């Protein structure tokens, strides 16, 4: 069953890539749980290197704006007409969230801005920082008990 499924899953992209036209902008490669509960870490992996500029997180952690600068904008595939949006379905100690990526030069005065808007579905405590590989954003979550406490919110 799994062997068959794996073979089918493998065949789809390979076959598709044979006839694929050129790529369009794509900044987020994947969103993965890197460390399990209770203090989970989520890594939002990008398709190119970034430089961290600044961030702002709402008091309850529901909304976070992270401003980055793309160092190799060519790797994103060009400026898109639409925002890239990816939804993370959540895990035990990580509420579901949506990441919106905007490459519009008007979203920040810096050259090649990459504006990341994160919105969680409930209050949560976490830290946001650029990953050590410069190609990812790390979200380090506090334990579930702490995150649900009235004092839950941002950590900078």
């Amino acid at each position, binding site marked *: 069953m*799994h062997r068959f*499924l*794996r073979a089918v899953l*493998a065949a*789809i*992209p*390979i076959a*598709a*890539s044979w006839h*694929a*036209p*050129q*790529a*369009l*902008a*794509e900044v987020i*490669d*994947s969103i993965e749980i890197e*460390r399990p*509960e*209770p*203090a989970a870490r989520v890594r939002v992996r990008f*398709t*190119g290197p970034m*430089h*961290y*500029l*600044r961030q*702002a*997180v*709402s*008091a309850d952690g529901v*909304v976070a704006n992270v401003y980055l*600068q793309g*160092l*190799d904008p*060519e790797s*994103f*595939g*060009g400026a898109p*007409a639409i925002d890239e*949006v990816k*939804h*993370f*379905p959540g895990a035990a100690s990580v509420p579901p969230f949506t990441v919106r990526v905007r490459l519009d030069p*008007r*979203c920040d*005065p*810096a*050259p090649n801005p990459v504006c990341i*808007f994160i*919105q969680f579905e409930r209050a949560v405590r976490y830290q946001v920082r*650029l990953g*050590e590989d*410069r*190609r990812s954003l790390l979200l*380090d979550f*506090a*334990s579930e008990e702490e995150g649900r406490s009235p004092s839950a919110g941002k950590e*900078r």
Partner: protein
Amino acid sequence: MIPRAVLFALAGLVLAGTGAFAQSPPAPTLHVVALATVPSVAQRPATELPKALRGNPLYWRVLRSANAVSYQLCLGFFQTRDEAERARRQLAASFPEAHVIQVSVQERENLQKATRAAAAAAPAPAARAAALPSAALSPAPPAAARPPAAAAAAALPPPQASPPSAETPSAPVALAQAPAGSAEALMAEGRGAIVREDYAAAIRAFTQLLALPQSSLTRDAQEFLALSYERRGDTAHARTEYENYLKRYPDGEDSVRVRQRLANLSAEPQMATLRSPSEPQQGWRSFTSGSLSQFYYRGNSKIDSQPQGPNALDRTTLSVVDQSALITSLDLNARVLDDTHENRVAFRDVNTRNFIGGQESVNRLDSAYYDYKYKPANASARLGRQPGNTAGLPGRFDGALLGYGLSSGARLNVAAGEPVVPGFSIDSVQRFYGVSAELGPFNQRWSGNVYVFRQTVDGIADRDAVGMEGRYFSPQGYFSSMVDYDTLFRHLNMATAQGNWIAPWKTAFNVLLDYRMTPSLQTTNAIIGEATTSIRELLNTYTEEELRQRARAVTAQSALAYAGLMHPVTSVWQLGANLSVSRISHTDGTNNYPATPGSGYIYTSTAQAIGTGVFATRDVTVISASRVSADTYTGLGGQFTSRFPVGANWTLDGAVLWYRQDNQDGSTLQRISPVGRATYRWRNSISLELEAGIENTSARSAFLQEDTRRYFFSAGYRWDF
């Protein structure tokens, strides 16, 4: 300096005049059970404690007589003699000589002080061994298979022959007096939980400790976390945490022990019967997520042109629909994994259907790859269209990327394929292969990579590069630098240094120095300005060397220096500023492509205020002002944006952008653009979105006055699954 092992050898000794304590405690308000008296701590009785008594501290008391010293192993502390007697009776079989004695409260405080002193010292390997169940040092069966009291014995200080000392001792137990939430308190909590076999609590404590800034306890916490998972029977997480340990601390005798534990872990059979029903099922699991979205975009521009001057023509007005398109995007991720293997498929495709005559409809495949990981060997294989998110590789390519972990601090990657350059289709075949080595992390902070890369185009060399990257990563910030040198052109292709640092007073600094050839240096650049995009055809006219000279002649150099800071001034507002200087060089051009002038230095300064909770609980508001100064123009810009959720389902975004530019020739440009967007989320899986805006642009020169008003909107949905 006292060796750490010796420090721990003193652990548990309470020395403050115990002879006097034993005979006539000044304030006998507590009781302890004196289990045994031995001439040397090396003769510690190796006997188990009943489960009910494992939370009580065990410690040594020193008994001094006129010409001898002996050691009394005690179990403390009981409020009443009756409680202590009950404990003694439970221990009578193992400690027939056990008896109850009175001690002062001061003795318990002495022990606590000693414990805190121990916490201040770096924990020794011996300390870790003593504070852990014995299985930390040697292979052991899973938790449920061990004797019930095995963990309790571990709370005893280790057998040792170190000479006793009259100095204040250190002890590896009872750190609960440290401030709640501190590394010391969490370490004590975690250790205590291990001894109690409450592994969920231990995992919680050690994970919280690891989230704190680096300290002398971090290394131990990482090992204890892995051990806690192992004892809980969660082999997958235990393996991950042991591997994390080895990545961070590849060297040292502790690492040898952890490596052995990891090896034993792999060798131990999976015992599903040991897991409680509430624990996650191991074995094959599958996850699927993604989204499907469709958005319609429409833009309408109205342009009023009024030529200036004595013989100017009449005013003209042009109204045109400049955008009408339906964009459909499909994003799919599927994973099938178990403790050892992980299979992943990623697929992303964007289709643009244009409704305006002359504008082509296009379908573009962003990603379509299969990714496989074999966790025990840190091996991976990725096949298909993928981002080149490993050093030296093109931004996106069709091909294969293979990786293998040579050791805990080194990983080898091999890649081959064809680069994909969005929006740049050529009639030539580019192929590449490359090898890179990922190194680190070392000391949990240093990492980097080195790579070699070769690319061909229509059979000739296109790009040959070597490069390296070094990184320093700490809780306070990071610093990274990378260099890419083209050995074919004998020219630096790219060099970057960047850093970000948060000072103790919460000011965040960031710097960036970036130099690169633009576009990236390669022989293929020679097609710029040519009638053909085939290198093969150009080779009929030019030699390889001439092509490279032409490529170099149309490739510019870009340089950027950027520095900024941001500081929270209140709980709502943070203020910041940044300065940048950038420059793009001229190009020499070719006989078919004219030379382009350089940009000169462009100076940009920006002041910014970011507020959270300005208008509502969750809004994030940004106000910024910028000034741009270049050789041929100066510009001023302002921006106001705010974004906030309303209720559980709505999110509103608003922005007003303004820009004015004064050119050296006397012409001016002014633009203002308000934009709004509303998003409604329905049943957590459907998002409906509407965005609308206006952009007013006024351009003035000696010859023309032009006003452009553009209306634009988009509407659509996204289904997340």
